[in-house]
């Protein structure tokens, strides 16, 4: 059964003497900054708690408000359970993408308060401030997933695969969340205020997560949206998690349009996430180098 993978542990400080530059120095700097962000999260628990309430609300709303009306094709008697199993991977995936807003707001706040200037005047690795932030967000995302999984189990969600596969499903979700926090990092560096980073980090997530296979089967959408939905990077992770949790339904086809990512969701999910990390990490680090408060 799922206790969700607590993959990322709070980074412990590494006592290495005077490493300078290189990968080692970069990792160490990132952990120092990551630890700082985790301490902050512990001292502002409201943020973590609100971060938990939202997905729980979504689970409950979708299950009990929409669940009765959304028909999963060919579902046996009382389709509520079928939809519940269909829905959870989507909710999990949507939840991890909200890490974007956290990372964005955090970095915008650091810019605003002059902390980024301090970091940039230190002889530390250039990417470490952002990597540290995204790692801390990853820990928070993992924590959120654990709580959410427990809530899901309580309202009747079940997995039908072995533990290794289930954990792999959560690993893919975390990878997606980590990728999205880099998008957040870029947003945080690009806007003027933390408030703008929060809303700027959230609005585009709604079309992105709704034009997908997360909440309803794609086959009910207009043809154009079917293509968009099936090539949506977000859909790949949802499909992959659904597969690894054993929450697929023989009556819901893997793909309507025959899109490659839907046929190979696990591989597609990994590729999409790594691609997002590669692109947005590069852009964000470049932006950081020239950032001016």
């Amino acid at each position, binding site marked *: 059964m799922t206790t969700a993978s607590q993959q990322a542990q709070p980074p412990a*400080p*590494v*006592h*290495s*003497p*005077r*490493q*300078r*530059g290189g990968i080692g*120095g970069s990792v*160490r*700097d990132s952990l*120092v*900054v990551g*630890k*700082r962000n985790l*301490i*902050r999260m512990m*001292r*502002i628990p409201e943020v973590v708690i609100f971060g938990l309430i939202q997905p729980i609300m979504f689970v409950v709303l979708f299950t009990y408000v929409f669940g009765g009306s959304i028909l999963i094709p060919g579902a046996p008697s009382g389709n509520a359970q079928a939809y519940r199993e269909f829905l959870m991977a989507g909710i999990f995936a949507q939840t991890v993408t909200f890490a974007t807003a956290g990372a964005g707001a955090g970095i915008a706040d650091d810019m605003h*308060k*002059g*902390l980024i*200037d*301090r*970091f*940039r*005047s*230190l*002889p*530390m690795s250039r990417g*470490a401030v952002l990597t540290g932030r995204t790692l801390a967000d990853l820990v928070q995302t993992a924590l959120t997933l654990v709580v959410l999984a427990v809530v899901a189990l309580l309202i009747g969600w079940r997995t039908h695969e072995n533990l290794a596969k289930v954990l792999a499903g959560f690993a893919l979700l975390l990878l997606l969340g980590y990728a999205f926090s880099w998008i957040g990092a870029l947003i945080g560096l690009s806007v003027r205020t933390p408030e703008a980073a929060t809303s700027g980090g959230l609005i585009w997530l709604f079309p992105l997560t709704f034009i997908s296979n997360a909440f309803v089967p794609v086959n009910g959408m207009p043809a154009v949206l079917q293509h968009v939905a099936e090539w949506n990077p977000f859909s790949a992770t949802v499909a992959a998690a659904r597969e690894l949790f054993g929450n697929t339904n023989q009556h819901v086809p893997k793909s309507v349009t025959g899109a490659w990512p839907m046929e190979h969701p696990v591989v597609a999910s990994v590729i999409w996430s790594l691609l997002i990390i590669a692109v947005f990490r590069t852009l964000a680090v470049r932006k950081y180098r*020239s950032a*001016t408060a």
Partner: protein
Amino acid sequence: MPGAIYAEGLVKTFGEVRALDGVDLDVPEGTVLGMLGPNGAGKTTAVRVLTTLLRPDRGRAEVAGIDVLAHPDRVRRAIGLSGQFAAVDEYLTGRENLTMVGQLYQMSGRDAKRRAGELLERFNLSDAADRTAKTYSGGMRRRLDLAAALVVSPPVMFMDEPTTGLDPRNRQALWEVIEELVAGGTTLLLTTQYLEEADRLAHDICVVDHGKVIARGTSDQLKARTGGERVEVVVHAAEHIPVAEAVLNGFGKGEGTIEPHTRKITVPVAGGAKLLAEIIRELDTRGVEIDDIGLRRPTLDDVFISLTGHVAEAADGSGESGADADGGTGGRQKKGRKATGPGEPAAVRETAGGGTADGDRGTADKEGVK
């Protein structure tokens, strides 16, 4: 041999604004350069360029003998920066803040902790060391910020308006810390809007306005250039003003100014305390009752106003700080600036960007006889 901080022809534009318009600096090792200027003059931009935070459009700079543009990372190891905001993480304790900075200066965790302890002690923050910085007063945050800049005892320090927003007591305390630091051999570039601060801390002062260095020299040299001493008289009754004015003009060596609402007459003089005694006797003879009289030597405030055409605190950005410094927009702030005599501002401005001021006759006294 260039100094510990050296810059040549720095230019930086932001859109239409030329934040730096050809700035040259040379700060000898172990000395303090006070960079004086109104808001928006380009002080912060200069600091940002020298601390590797911003690339200039043109020009070159060296800090601690290292080329800032070519080897920013080596420069970062040699400098400490205390910016305009107290850049500390308010959700971390004082100790956590300093330990983190130490680790990011590539110290081991243990060394960073030990150093944090030392600095907390030195900056009088030991009692608050394990409280989050959120609970600190403004002065404490500033001290913590300064401590963070000193974690590796860098040979070159940059402080951007370190005492802005502090109350007088905290400002005094911070000055003492800075003086101690400089006594230890640190080279310091300090920007400030407080002329008193530059007067007290800096060996050399450069006045910056509209992205240019418009004057430089020691505090005394700059004051000497602004013109000599003046006598200020406050008469008891408004009807005495004409008589007093006549008396003062008799002794003065230039046109004076009158502020009717404060009943104050100011006139440039040469002759010092002896002359003051004569003026008092003459006023007495003529039956003018006085509330206050004093010999006033120029302060850096006067220097600043005469050079930039506006007061330090009020940056109006009206762009009329050019030759207009003498005519001016009137108002109380310009009192007494109309008649500084031969060394008038326009002439001073001519030498902008050039060497040091000539002459060294001024004294640092701010208050004359009362």
